[in-house]
């Protein structure tokens, strides 16, 4: 589980869910580095940085992605 500002590496994404297949196609694969940039002001959705692009996805999808925290940026 990442916190805003943290970077991590994707460990697993459940297979088979159509919305997650699209996330895979947009480059979220096991081993890919992702940065949790921020939450929207109302808490959902979240903004992540992956392969040089900024993506917004909802908690419902984001929470399915298992991530290993790489290092804490700042603080």
């Amino acid at each position: 589980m990442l916190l805003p500002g943290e970077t991590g590496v994707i460990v697993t994404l459940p297979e088979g869910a159509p919305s997650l297949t699209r996330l895979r196609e947009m480059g979220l694969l096991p081993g890919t580095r992702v940065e949790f940039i921020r939450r929207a002001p109302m808490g959902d959705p979240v903004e992540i940085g992956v392969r040089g692009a900024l993506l917004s996805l909802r908690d419902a999808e984001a929470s399915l992605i298992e991530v290993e925290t790489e290092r804490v940026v700042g603080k």
Partner: protein
Amino acid sequence: MKATVYSEGLVYALVGNPNCGKTTLFNALTGLRQKVGNYPGVTIERKEGEFYSQHGVRLRVIDLPGAYSLNARSPDEAILRDVLLGRRPDTPRPDRIVCVVDASNPERNLYLFTQILELGVPVILVLNMVDVAERNGLRFDVERLAERFGVPVIPMVASQKKGLVELKVAMSRQELPSPKPLLDAMPVPVRGALVRARENLAAAGIVAATASPLEPLYLISGHDPTHYGIAPAAVAMIQLGREQLEREVPGWEDRLVAARYDAIHAALESVVRRPESASATLTDKLDTVLLHKVWGWLALAGTLGFLFYLIFSVVEIPVGWIESGFSALTAKITGTSEVPGWMPDGDLRSLVTDGVISGVSGVIVFLPQILILFFFIGFMEDTGYMARVAFLMDRIMSRVGLTGKSFLPILGSHACAVPGVMAARTIESPRDRLITILVAPLAACSARLPVYLLLIAALVPGKVVPAPMKAGILTGLYAAGIAGVFCFAWLFNRKLLPGAPSAMILELPAYKMPSFGNIARQMAGRAWMFIRRAGTVILGLSILLWGASTYPKLRNADGSLSEDKSAALAHSAAGRLGHAIEPVIRPMGADWKIGIGLISSFAAREVFVSTMSVIYNVEAEDDDDGTRRLRDRLAAERRPDGTPVYTPALCASLMVFFVFAMQCLSTIAVVRRETHSWKWPLFQLAYMTGTAWLLATAAYQLISTLSS
């Protein structure tokens, strides 16, 4: 011999991810030689243009919708898939493909390119926005890339036309090499399963017997069970093929994606020099403010406030020109007592002035609002702010099953539902788009305002309505409209179109300077489409309504035409219809005179005020005095038993009716246009007007009971 490869009218397809600058490139290539239309059956723009090659040969270019993958997840992507696979009878299969990638984000952009390379058609790769990529520390070795992919690679900055000549030279080449696919997309077991799937699909007539196995691949790996643009019978077949493939090769789809990214990674490893460390970009800095918990909302409120200022105030100026232009024309035709008009008095003149001209002006008068709203939408999309608005608003819209993308169409409908419904085109999910279109006309549009003001004035006895009370009631009416939008969106989401809520996966593109040329083209395209498609329906219905309120004519005892306009209107078909619906509207407190007003207000809500003026023989003048005179006349109106007609209960009932009722031919025409059937506008008419009647009746009965 080469003429088969390179001939007059060779068709190029332009493909790429959203936000890769494809449209800018298309405009730079084809200039004004463009045709914009629609793909039949769907609301997706079909853009085709042409230009002359270095050798003076005419080349056709089809600008396909932006897409992330050939595994279609939206109707836009289904169009791309179907055109590239030659599945659309209305569009020729492209002979060659220009694939545009955003050079500042090469990995993700090249994913679609790896799929394009396998189609067996010559490909040209355009690395667009190389200037941005260089600033971000990315450099490309163009020759090595070209060698690796086996295709010409053209670095470009399309917005500055840099590299355009090189691209045209490449597109003019007699022969292009066959691309080298980055990987074998189909490992042996998948290929076997796909070939069997193709046989089944071909037997059912879904694909041609000669189709490449890629065709079943992209049909089967679609993301949505409805498989956009595919016949329902075929969907079951495809579903079957998908399950079979999954049984034979579990996890094949996800593994294929991973294999593509591995291949892209390997191809880029050798040629792209990565920056030592990425510094904060302009986009990062802007987002810290524009998506901030406090500043983000303020920026959004400021932007939308400015939009409303434009739509409510500035739009009055061109609307004034249009209206005075048309009334000057009408004056020329009718003439005055001194100067004879162009046409003699009579039915034909009445048809021209009251039917045709008022119908045409009723169409043209929407143009300023449509142009302003689409300028704004174009500006927000082109700069990249639009995606941020969806990001900020998504949480609120998700409560009723929509996404942040529905916010702007609904907000815009508070000015006018016509451009609001058209703006729903920006929503990819057909289900979300339909729900948005169905609820958008509940938003309190500006045409309701004169009716509200008249009814508020009539509601409150005395000379002047106290400002706080006026504001309070108005706010309540607007709030009722918003409540209606959310309640019905929730209801439709649950009951009418149940299904999995769409996952909002949205790219937040890097901010950039907008291209006013692109925006102007889009504005002109939308305006023209409105005039051509919806305008004709609005004009026809306006003439029909004119006929209903003119015929049959009222004659005096001596056979001459009656001069009494009020009596003539009561005598006409519309008047009789008013009488006919009286039993239906009586529970909400209305009589047949109001019935005529309600019927005529179907042309446009504000017509209610002028019709009431005619019915009560009040000189209709579009100013405060006119409203006041009409108000006084309404207050004096009595029932046969001597009690006042316009009681607070009736005024409240009418207000509630106008909040919810679908009384706008233009909106009906646009919804018909945007949903491609009469089913949804008629459903909308039924549910909105039904709700209006129920709630108006409830309001009337409740207030009458309480006050008696």
